[in-house]
């Protein structure tokens, strides 16, 4: 019999209820904050474990000679960054240099790739999906592009002053609120499932 299961379920439900009650009962606010601080410490520890996992996965790839060049670069970068920040602190000049001259440019490059990928994806969607939703999507996209500003120096007033603001401020806003309500309802029911122990993602 797995004795860990009922214990971890009880702990999860108990702490979940205490945090929830802390929102509604002012006397429990301190306890709630303390629990959240513990959770933050655990999350920081989990982050270290995540980095260790990343290291292990790539170390095994190097040993198996599988995409090993990328794994060697990753492990070297990880070890150097970890040592530099550990010795000199995260706000040191060296750590800032790594962030500003390595991390930011690489992420910006990925962002640039993303812009091209999304343009291609939109074109592919237009080619492959021919349902009503897609036609609405493409039509809306065209209207918003035409309404975004002058086209070859020529303004299309009906698009820029009437159609585009109407879509942005009425139709899109309504749809966004509808989607957000769906997300909010889904979030609440998912939280309740965890609180009543119907979902146990902690492996119980």
């Amino acid at each position, binding site marked *: 019999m*797995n004795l860990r299961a009922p214990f971890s379920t009880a702990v999860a439900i108990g702490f979940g209820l205490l945090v*929830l009650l802390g*929102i*509604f009962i002012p006397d429990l606010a301190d306890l709630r904050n303390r629990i*959240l601080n513990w*959770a*933050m410490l*655990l*999350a920081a*520890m*989990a*982050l*270290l*474990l*995540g*980095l260790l*996992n*990343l290291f*292990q*996965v790539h170390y*095994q790839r190097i040993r198996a000679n599988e*995409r090993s060049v*990328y794994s060697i670069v990753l492990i070297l970068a990880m070890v150097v960054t970890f040592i530099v920040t550990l010795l000199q602190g995260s706000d040191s000049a060296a750590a800032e240099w790594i962030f500003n001259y390595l991390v930011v440019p*690489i*992420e910006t490059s*990925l*962002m640039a*790739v*993303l812009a091209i*990928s*999304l343009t*291609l*994806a*939109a074109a*592919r*969607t237009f080619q492959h999906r021919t349902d009503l939703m897609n036609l609405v*999507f493409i039509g809306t996209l065209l209207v918003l592009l035409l309404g975004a500003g002058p086209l070859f120096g020529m303004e299309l007033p009906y698009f820029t002053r009437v159609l585009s603001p109407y879509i942005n401020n009425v139709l899109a806003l309504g749809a966004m609120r*509808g*989607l*957000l*309500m*769906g*997300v909010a*309802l*889904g*979030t*609440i*029911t*998912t*939280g*309740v*499932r*965890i609180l*009543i122990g*119907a*979902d146990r*993602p*902690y*492996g*119980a």
Partner: protein
Amino acid sequence: MMPSPLAILALVVALMLLFSVWNGGKRRTLRNIPAIQRLQRSIDLSVEDGSRLQVNLGHGGLLSTHSAAALAGLTLLQQVAEIAADSDLPPVATSGEGTLMLLAQDTLRSTYRRIGIPDQFHLHLAQTTGITPFAYAAGTLPSVLDRTALSTAMLGAFGPEAGLIADAAHRSEGFSLGGSPALSTQAVLFAAAHEPLLGEELYAAGAYTKANVAHEASLRTQDVLRWVIIVLLLFTAISPFFGGNQ
């Protein structure tokens, strides 16, 4: 007058408990969500042809506001593992955050134990592939691009970088499904993924993959509450015509 959050919570709990024990006297059919149907076909296919299914849980941790989306992803991971754990290439989970990685490992470990193959579980089946959003996407891309994972499900907190993963799935002729609570990401996934999950569909995956009775109950609760909100909105809109407060 605004209803108090406690009253809303109490209503949700009451409705979920009611729908858990009462199924209306007849078998209910869930409305068709093509994305989830295609995912189910994809899971079956991955078992048949021995290809791998990858569940990406995003980079939102348990302490973030989007933690519920990641929990929905974990439910899907559990269902996928129950079906495909003993296939040639068992499903893998990726995350961009430590707590999610631990939960994914726990979810997989308990599923392997439940289906009687605990010795086949390995910690590397749930990986952290990067800590920042783009690092996470970059770490996830290789397994999609080299066709190690032919089916890619993205359920969790994602930013626009989800477009890179979906695009990689397209280029490697794999299948991609994605859902995120962020509206901008939903727009990206609508354009880039084979099957996007919009709005509350993200949280419905468990009910469709037959996770447990609570999932179907929560889906019915969402349906009821959605109608309550619609009625309240209509009432608020027309009440000024009948002398109500503006």
